[in-house]
């Protein structure tokens, strides 16, 4: 059984009479695998990530999604998080006045509680954060600042990866994590992500460009277009896309 099984997923913006954004998307992801989803703007990549995380602005009109055999679409947003779904946001949201440290701890304990586990002790938590933050070049000062408030683009993305490292999800969805990063920041972030690769964790890396995949090397590459996966292959598919662009797919559609 696949960890994540998306079958013939159709979805549109909630309350909107217009077109479906996802039109029969299917994808199976097994533990330990890293899947890259590439595609032109407007192909529905971010919509897919939001629907997996449970954002309420979308309506699933057909199809199913299961996580370890359980119906993911029936779960509340925070329930999905506790089951191990983590979305690294393309545009991380600011929460003024809430120290990053406080936020991390609240999130971790909320998840542990939902899973029936004990809360983490203060010394254990501090140790955990210190170790993970150091690897990502995140300073103590940043941890004291409000969540994402006044962070640079690179800092925001590093903070997302820090949250991922602390929450230890089962399924990581990285939505355009490379956007707005210079090459050095891209390296740091990619190293952070690579450090989290493990045989029981799966990742879906959504990106427009191939360059991220030089650093986070995927097992599978999928091309998404007009709400469906139109082609799948190994990591070499990304190189091909880099060389030829998405024109081929856009012509098909025309």
């Amino acid at each position: 059984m696949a960890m994540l099984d998306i079958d013939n997923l159709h979805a549109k913006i909630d309350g909107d009479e217009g077109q479906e954004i996802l039109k029969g998307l299917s994808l199976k992801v097994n533990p330990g695998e890293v899947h890259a989803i590439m595609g032109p703007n407007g192909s529905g990549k971010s919509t897919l990530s939001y629907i997996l995380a449970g954002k309420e602005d979308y309506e699933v009109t057909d199809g199913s999604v299961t996580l370890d055999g359980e119906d993911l679409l029936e779960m509340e947003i925070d329930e999905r998080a506790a089951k191990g779904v983590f979305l690294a946001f393309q545009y991380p949201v600011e929460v003024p006045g809430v120290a990053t440290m406080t936020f991390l701890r609240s999130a971790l304990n909320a998840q542990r509680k939902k899973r029936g586990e004990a809360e983490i002790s203060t010394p254990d938590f501090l140790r955990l954060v210190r170790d993970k933050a150091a690897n990502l070049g995140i300073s103590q000062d940043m941890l004291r600042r409000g969540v994402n408030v006044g962070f640079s683009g690179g800092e925001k993305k590093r903070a997302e990866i820090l949250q991922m490292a602390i929450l230890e999800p089962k399924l990581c969805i990285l939505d355009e994590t490379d956007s707005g990063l210079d090459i050095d920041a891209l390296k740091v972030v990619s190293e952070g992500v690579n450090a989290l690769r493990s045989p029981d964790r799966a990742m879906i890396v959504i990106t427009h460009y191939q360059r991220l995949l030089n650093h986070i090397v995927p097992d599978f590459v999928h091309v998404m277009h007009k709400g469906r996966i139109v082609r799948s292959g190994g990591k070499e598919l990304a190189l091909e896309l880099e060389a030829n662009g998405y024109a081929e797919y856009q012509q098909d559609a025309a």
Partner: protein
Amino acid sequence: MPAVQETVDQVRSIDVDQYKYGFFTEIESEKAPKGLTEDTIRFISAKKDEPEWMLEWRLEAFRRWQTMREPEWARVSYPPIAYQELYYYSAPKRKTALSIDDIDPEILKTYEKLGIPLRERDALLGIESGGAKVAVDAVFDSVSVATTFKEELAKAGVIFMPISEAIREYPDLVRKYLGSVVPVTDNFFATLNSAVFSDGSFVYVPKGVRCPMELSTYFRINERNTGQFERTLIIADEGAYVSYLEGCTAPQRDENQLHAAVVELVALADAEIKYSTVQNWYPGDSQGKGGIFNFVTKRGDCRGDRSKISWTQVETGSAITWKYPSCILRGDNSQGEFYSIAISNGRQQVDSGTKMIHLGKNTSSRIISKGIAAGYSDNTYRGLVSAHRKATNARNFTNCDSLLIGDKCGAHTVPYIESKNSSAHFEHEATTSKISEDQLFYCRQRGLDPEEATALIVNGFVKDVLQQLPMEFAVEAQKLIAVSLEGSVG
């Protein structure tokens, strides 16, 4: 911060319409006859064994009050108050307690339930468990039932006692300062209070003394149809420092109850007074039935040079709040501060803010106000900053933020700025925001449920003000905020 977690636990354990302090204590009480006449005032004055001058003062206030009209400018609406249907005095029947052991056990139990230790040894246990030492004056309906740590304070020369006792024991001090900040004729509710106030706290900190502990008064309205009219007078003599906290609760009742208090603060040269309030009067039910009308006049006078008065308030209760803790910056180089968190939920109406009256040279003031409206409530900040023509170099900074939760509530900001001196420098910043869907989604994606997420976002919003509260009260306030917003999401 572990308090966030506690906040969240607290939220979860409480139902929407449940007000934790809504219980009623069965106790025999002695009341003045219903209604308000000169006889009522004579009755109260006689009960308190007051000197003649005090009775005259009250009667003069009463005569004045009869000619006054209730103010209508606040952005609140409520049915007319039947002043002749209220009781103006209610006291537990047992004789005034001489020591803690003479207090009616039912009252002790009430305060225990509220988490306020009146037995000094219980309070001292609090020290061992990490809490700070706090002297408490407990006011039950119209009378003060206990004041703790009196002796220890007396050693430092600090007077902390019910004002009814102070009138008898320190008449000169009381006479000199009572009504000197909030005149008898000040406003409808203050004048009413002057006529009928029955108790409250009196604090005098002598020259150069730093009060050795936090002082606190805990107000409890218990009796039905009874108004509470407490009067607090705090004087910090030259170079003195005192930090004072008041807390308030009342039983859950279907009818509205009136609370019209007056607080006067006097800071002489180089003195500092820090006054914090955690107000959690019964707010009424979710349909707006019942709850306290909180019509309060609070004012501090920075009478001496370099004096400082700081108000911090966390307002979560009351059906209607009408309250503007103010500072008169009379002394040169004096400073006034107002830090406020006002939360409204259900059908609550809040019209609150401050006045900073700059009279002296180089005076400065700072206003940080955080209003949070949820449910069907209305939340108004109303503030006045003024500079007298002699107030050279007056400085003010105002920051007024409102947060809306849901789309049935309202937040309003009404700033008044008057400057008669061209060197004054006043800054005003205001924002109104909603807890965004994006913020909620982000927090929930990390595992927080909707209420945990809201509590976290709101605590972040009010952080600047919470930091102003004494540590142990900040934690309390944080919990209270979460509880007040219970049921406001989704």
